[in-house]
């Protein structure tokens, strides 16, 4: 924590990546005399922006929040969610009042980032957009955001991860922002539901953890039938969504090439992930129920087959 000299500013950074409830509680206690400040600025990745959102909520502060993301994947600057961990378990605040009033998007932050970081964050955005598109809670507005994001990801992700091309970075920053707007309406589905315990138990970064099941989830969801459909809009409506996705050249075969080109390992054995039972047992039920196809334990296990 640093108080800013001649200006009444305060810098707070006493929290780790994937912040927990204890760190938020401590920040609420430490940052006293809140009348000294007139705005909150959050500069950093999704964890930092989520921390600022949570601080504002738990402090009952009415200060406006300016979010400046430095990584592009979570879309946190455009959502009303904040991810926090309690006892190693992921919790998600979902509260309209924590949505930042301002977002400053500068894709230059992503340039020169490590290749693996770019691959993880970009895959988080891509999976958010895909999951949002097929989500039970999707709307016309969220699907519009999602389709735009999917198209931008498809056209830019490989160049973004492998080069410092400024246009690719700008497009991925926009894709991330649009994916955030999409899930702010629809929420995510099964790949996100399974990812949280992979991150907490095996330390796999969030975007990488989400990507591990997206290919097989795509295949599983595209085979949805009347018997296991969760979307009340009907089987024809959901099937049409997969025709749209296939027309965007996104299908289960697409992902093998993509993962190879962005150098993302998806073989769970090579990543040291052995306890699929644990992951299936700790799936986020709320997000799972937003998947268009009901997934039983066997189907959940199959999502991790190579």
């Amino acid at each position, binding site marked *: 924590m*640093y108080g*800013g*000299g*001649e*200006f*009444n*500013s*305060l*810098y*707070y*950074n006493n929290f780790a*990546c994937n912040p927990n409830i204890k760190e938020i509680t401590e920040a609420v206690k430490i*940052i006293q005399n*809140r009348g*000294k*400040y*007139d*705005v*909150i*600025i*959050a*500069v*950093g*990745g999704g*964890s*930092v*922006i989520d*921390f*600022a959102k949570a*601080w504002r909520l738990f402090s009952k502060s009415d*200060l*406006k929040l*300016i979010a*400046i993301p*430095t990584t592009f994947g979570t879309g946190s600057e455009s959502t009303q969610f904040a991810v926090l961990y309690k006892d190693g378990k992921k919790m998600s605040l979902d509260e309209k009042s924590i949505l930042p009033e*301002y977002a*400053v998007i*500068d894709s*230059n*932050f992503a*340039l*020169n980032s490590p290749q693996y970081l770019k691959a993880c964050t970009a895959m988080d955005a891509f999976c958010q957009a895909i999951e949002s598109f097929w989500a039970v809670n999707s709307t016309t507005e969220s699907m519009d955001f999602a389709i735009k994001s999917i198209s931008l990801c498809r056209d830019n992700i490989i160049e973004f991860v492998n080069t410092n091309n400024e246009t690719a970075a700008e497009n991925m920053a926009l894709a991330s922002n649009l994916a955030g707007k999409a899930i702010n309406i629809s929420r995510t589905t099964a790949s996100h539901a399974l990812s949280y315990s992979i991150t907490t138990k095996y330390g796999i970064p969030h975007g990488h953890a989400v990507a591990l099941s997206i290919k097989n989830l795509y295949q599983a969801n595209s085979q949805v039938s009347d018997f296991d459909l969760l979307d009340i809009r009907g089987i024809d409506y959901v099937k049409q969504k997969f025709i749209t996705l296939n027309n965007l050249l996104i299908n289960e075969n697409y992902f093998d090439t993509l993962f190879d080109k962005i150098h993302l390992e998806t073989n769970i054995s090579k990543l040291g992930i052995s306890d699929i039972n644990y992951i299936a047992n700790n799936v986020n039920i709320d997000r799972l129920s937003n998947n268009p196809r009901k997934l039983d334990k066997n189907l959940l296990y199959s999502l991790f087959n190579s």
Partner: protein
Amino acid sequence: MEQINYNYKGAINNLSKIMQQETFHKPLIFCGKKSFENIKPIIEKELKRVWGGGI
């Protein structure tokens, strides 16, 4: 000479516009540990530029 990380320049210019528009001048700033050393001098400089060296 103060080192300005080019990567932050566009964001800081936009932040400056918001700060001026809303007349914010007492920010509470959350930032990642890695970003802290880069961000602090730039925001301090921007506050000085916007508010003429003091409040």
